[in-house]
């Protein structure tokens, strides 16, 4: 160990465990504000890359829709607008409860915080449940991606009303499954994050001074909502 490192260690000895009254304040942070702002910048950077990550898929969507608008018109007839709209409302409500959970943490209302977290998790499961209904119907009817696309005659008749389908229709479902599937994985990630948050909230870790994790996970959850806000009209509402 170098001399400088030893010096640093010794210097630490005095005040690194100095935040005795604040068990969750990292010793490398000056105060709660410092820690909060650092974490906040971190989560925003993460959300920025999430946006670029989904941006690639939206780009693929835009190109295919630009080249073959007809397969998107035909493809959306296979989706249930009502289920998509219900899922939008479920996610919007969960965004409200997520935003409210931050308020509860800021006010130091432990029970309120836990209630909001539970509601958010419940909505996330509700969203996945409806998505499961949609997916299982499509799997059953053979409405799958790429080479797996092998629609039942029933489903085809129902969606196309006897009209001819474009031979590239399977591309729509490749895009549909990748975009909604990746979004669904993010919802599962959100559930795991909120379960972690629930455990910590129950232990009474959060209050007006320390609520960073509640805020950061809520931000992530809002981003998941944001992506769906665009996916819903792009996949379900096509004219």
């Amino acid at each position, binding site marked *: 160990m170098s001399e400088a490192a030893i010096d640093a260690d010794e210097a630490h000895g005095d005040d690194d465990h100095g935040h005795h009254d604040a068990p969750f304040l990292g010793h490398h942070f000056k105060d709660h504000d410092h820690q909060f702002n650092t974490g906040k910048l971190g989560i925003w950077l993460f959300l920025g890359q999430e946006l670029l990550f989904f941006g690639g898929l939206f780009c693929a969507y835009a190109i295919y829709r630009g080249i073959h608008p007809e397969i998107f018109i035909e493809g959306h007839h296979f989706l249930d607008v009502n289920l998509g709209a219900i899922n939008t409302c479920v996610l919007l409500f969960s965004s409200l409860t997520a935003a409210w959970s931050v308020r509860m943490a*800021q006010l130091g209302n432990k029970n309120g915080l836990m209630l909001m977290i539970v509601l958010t998790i419940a909505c996330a499961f509700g969203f996945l449940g409806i998505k499961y209904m949609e997916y299982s119907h499509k799997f059953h009817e053979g409405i799958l991606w790429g080479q797996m696309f092998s629609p039942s005659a029933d489903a085809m008749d129902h969606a196309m009303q006897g009209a001819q389908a474009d031979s590239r229709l399977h591309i729509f479902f490749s895009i549909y499954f990748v975009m909604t599937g990746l979004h669904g994985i993010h919802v599962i990630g959100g559930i795991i994050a909120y379960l972690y948050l629930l455990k910590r909230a129950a232990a009474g870790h959060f209050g007006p001074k320390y609520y960073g994790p509640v805020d950061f996970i809520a931000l992530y959850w809002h981003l998941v909502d944001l992506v769906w806000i665009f996916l819903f009209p792009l996949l379900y509402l096509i004219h």
Partner: protein
Amino acid sequence: MNNDEAHAEEHHDHHIMSPKVLIGTWLALMALTGLTVAAIKVDLGAQANLIVAMAIAAAKAMLVCLIFMHLWFDQKYNVMVFFGSVIFVVLFISITFIDTKRNVPFRDAWDATNKPTPEGRVVVEPTVSPVGTAGSDAAAESGEIDVPAAQKPRVPWPSQLPNTPRVAPTAH
């Protein structure tokens, strides 16, 4: 508003959203969702319908960003990070589009040699014999694309090349 809240709201970093603002934002988001579902039923032409749907989605996104994600009250560098990303996504898609337009002749050339039927379409009839891509008709006619009897009749699809093993869709 209790004392705690009043105190915290003075503080730049710890802005607490009032219930009124939160619920108002949520109601606005729900109303916009209803509007976008209703708007798609009005025939404005494919282009205009898409623009309206995207404008409503953008309005919803702004509400979520500025209020639920409290970017409006946040440090300016966080705003910069996020909208910096938005700008790059827009650039990414726009620049790719320039290239896509240039690819159209290649696409048309590919289509001309790969059309499964003269119209480039598949007839939706379960009884129709499987239509393969160019050069695979013989394989298709010999019945290599066979549907398990237990399954519902399937519409033959040109994306299923006859010479690749067909993966049967999972039943559930």
